[in-house]
């Protein structure tokens, strides 16, 4: 590459071997006497052309039309399955992009090799190229498989979801019926139907409150606990730390179901409170129209589950803290509170900004808390397919999994994604770690 850039007078494409490689992958390499590499590249292009002829073109057309013949399952007539056509269409687009990348790399390689030949250097054999790959481009080897995984299981579903938002998939229109592209209809429905926009407003408000509140609670709860367990006068620290370890280790579906049973109407906590006469006979925490009692219980459970992990993190960070600073501060006569406020907090805050952001994102999308705490799907008045404690992600679940309104659910997840992206971007830019990044490096 670099050698090429140093000689800009002549166009890099002027070499005939480069032109050949532009015309057909691997041809140029063949004429540079790199036979194995050239053959492999040519095979790749032939394979790609064959793929396009036999499936690719069809898949792309399928992506555009989403099927043309409807199946009649009761007659055993298989029609087009719009959903799988969508999936294969996306895959084909991915493959084409990948091929374009490969083509680009192939041309670059031809330019490089022909340049080397022009300078009179010996061309690398296939074995040497492989060795170079293993050594200089080690990253290429280690990243290929993970990248493939991420493409198939993370990026592709996101694109799929995004595209679904622009179709009418869901409700009555599921395979074998044909799905069609409907543009922004789902968004229109969400923003114009009073049921949706009203529900979304209420849920979004609560969701933001929840995310901020629970992040705050978990973060400072964890920090507080870490400081508490770090206190000099506390003996058997390792023993005491076992208790939060329980909360950290028990799978959350167990914890939350346990809490549901503890606090539900026929559960022991209410029973005991009623026996003691502390609450009235009619008192409930988890019921159909409970709003704040269940929300507060949600905060409690969230803290129970989340505080220990922040605590362990903070413990680790505190043990890294510079002891000299504290000694100096002590000499200056700073009391414990001042030490905390001016030394510990800024240090820990700086060190854990990414944690705060990821905690915030996780809490914003904390599906399981209210899924397990309100196991019955009852919808509250004033909400459409949701209840007062539901977060956006629970609502999305209700729409897609419970009520099969896929396109609306997908549109909602796009909106949710936009919100999250903006929120975390702002949080990231405002964070001390971001601001001080340059000074600390």
């Amino acid at each position, binding site marked *: 590459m670099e050698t090429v850039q140093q000689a800009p007078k002549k166009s890099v494409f002027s070499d005939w071997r480069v032109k050949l490689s532009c015309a057909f992958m691997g041809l140029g390499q063949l004429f540079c006497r790199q036979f194995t590499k050239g053959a492999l590249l040519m095979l790749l292009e032939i394979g790609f052309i064959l793929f396009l002829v036999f499936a690719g073109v069809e898949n792309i057309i399928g992506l555009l039309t989403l099927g043309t013949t409807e199946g009649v399952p009761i007659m055993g007539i298989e029609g087009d399955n719009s959903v799988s056509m969508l999936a294969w269409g996306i895959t084909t687009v991915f493959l084409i992009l990948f091929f374009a990348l490969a083509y680009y790399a192939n041309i670059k390689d031809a330019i490089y090799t022909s340049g080397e030949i022009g300078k009179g250097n010996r061309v690398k054999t296939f074995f040497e190229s492989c060795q170079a790959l*293993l050594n200089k481009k*080690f*990253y290429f080897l*280690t*990243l290929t498989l*993970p990248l493939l*995984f*991420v493409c*198939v*299981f*993370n*990026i*592709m*579903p*996101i694109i*799929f979801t995004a595209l*679904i938002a622009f179709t009418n998939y869901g409700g009555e229109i599921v395979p074998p019926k044909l799905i069609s592209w409907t543009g922004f209809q789902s968004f229109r429905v969400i923003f114009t139907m009073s049921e949706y926009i009203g529900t979304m407003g209420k849920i979004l408000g609560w969701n933001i409150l929840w995310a901020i509140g629970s992040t705050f609670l978990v973060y400072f709860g964890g920090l507080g606990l870490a400081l*508490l367990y770090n*206190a000099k*006068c*506390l003996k058997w620290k390792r023993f*005491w730390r*076992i*208790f*939060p*370890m*329980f909360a*950290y*280790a*028990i*799978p959350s*579906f*167990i*914890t939350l*179901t346990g*809490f549901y*049973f*503890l606090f*539900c109407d*026929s*559960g*022991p906590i209410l*029973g*005991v409170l009623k*026996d003691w006469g502390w609450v009235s006979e009619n008192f409930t925490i988890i019921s159909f129209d409970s709003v704040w009692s269940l929300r507060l219980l949600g905060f409690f459970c969230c803290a*129970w589950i989340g505080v*220990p992990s922040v605590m*362990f*993190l903070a*413990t*680790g*960070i505190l043990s890294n803290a510079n002891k000299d600073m504290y000694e100096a501060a002590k000499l200056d006569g700073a009391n414990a509170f001042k030490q905390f406020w001016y030394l510990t907090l800024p240090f820990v805050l700086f*060190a*854990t900004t*990414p944690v705060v952001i990821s905690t915030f*994102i996780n809490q914003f999308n904390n599906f399981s808390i209210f899924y397990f705490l309100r196991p019955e799907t009852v919808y509250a008045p004033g909400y459409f397919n949701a209840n007062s404690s539901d977060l956006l992600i629970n609502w999305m679940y209700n729409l897609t*999994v419970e009520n099969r309104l896929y396109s609306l659910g*997908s549109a909602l*997840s796009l909106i949710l*994604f936009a919100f999250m992206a903006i929120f975390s971007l702002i949080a990231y830019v405002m964070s001390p770690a971001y601001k001080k990044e340059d000074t600390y490096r």
Partner: protein
Amino acid sequence: MTKKMHIRPEKAAKTALVYLLVLFVSFIFAFPCIWLVLSAFNAEGDLLTLDGFFPQEYSFDTFRRLFTEVNKYDYRRWFTNTLFVAAVSCVISTFLVIAVAYTISRYRFKSRKAMMKATLILGIFPNFMNMTALFVIMTQLQLINNLWGLILLYSSGSTMGFLVQKGFFDTIPGSIYDAATLDGASDFRIFLSITLPLSKPMIVYTALTAFVWPWADFMLPSMLLVDKSSWTVAVGLNSLDDSEFSVFAAGSMFVAIPIIVLYIALSKYLIQGGSAGAVKD
């Protein structure tokens, strides 16, 4: 001297307060666990039969039912499935995460920054926000009812969390690598003989988190496993009736206890690993 005498009672009060707080916190954390364990030994299955907080009568009956009434709950099957998924994805994820994190930390290449940013953005979009899409893709890949489908999802999902491990690798000084490179060691050798031994706490941490996620997850298996014989413990236990609360509690014990033991045994690594990765961005 007099000053010191003054501080003593204050210090004692502080110690007392610390212990009081610690006891309170320990109670909050321990009580639900104890309650759950005791309910597992409830002679009657139902939540309603509790007397106050605790069962009236204790027995091992729920455990017997858990393992013998196969028509109702095929617990052994569920447990084997869970163990298989968690163990295999633990191995694959650990391998992938360490490889990716090391690569990103150690090498400078063109798309490096872009990849890190893309990871941050993709992380905002949690896996099950696209449940429908995942389900469709898995049907196309013939991976419904297939534990390998889950393993693939967990492996690729945990690879997305490589930033913590990358932060750890960043702390290894570059001079070590330079010296080794001068000695003529290949990159792969350097990774094996220098990086790996240095990052033992990080690897333990990675393996543990990679094991726990599939072990405790409910959403993905409940979506992808239609056939009961492929169910994991989380799906199976959640399918139980409310009147089977003791069975639920008993079944949870076998899921929770191994993890608790692992965590306590490896707590040193957990604290080190988690914080090492978090300190840097």
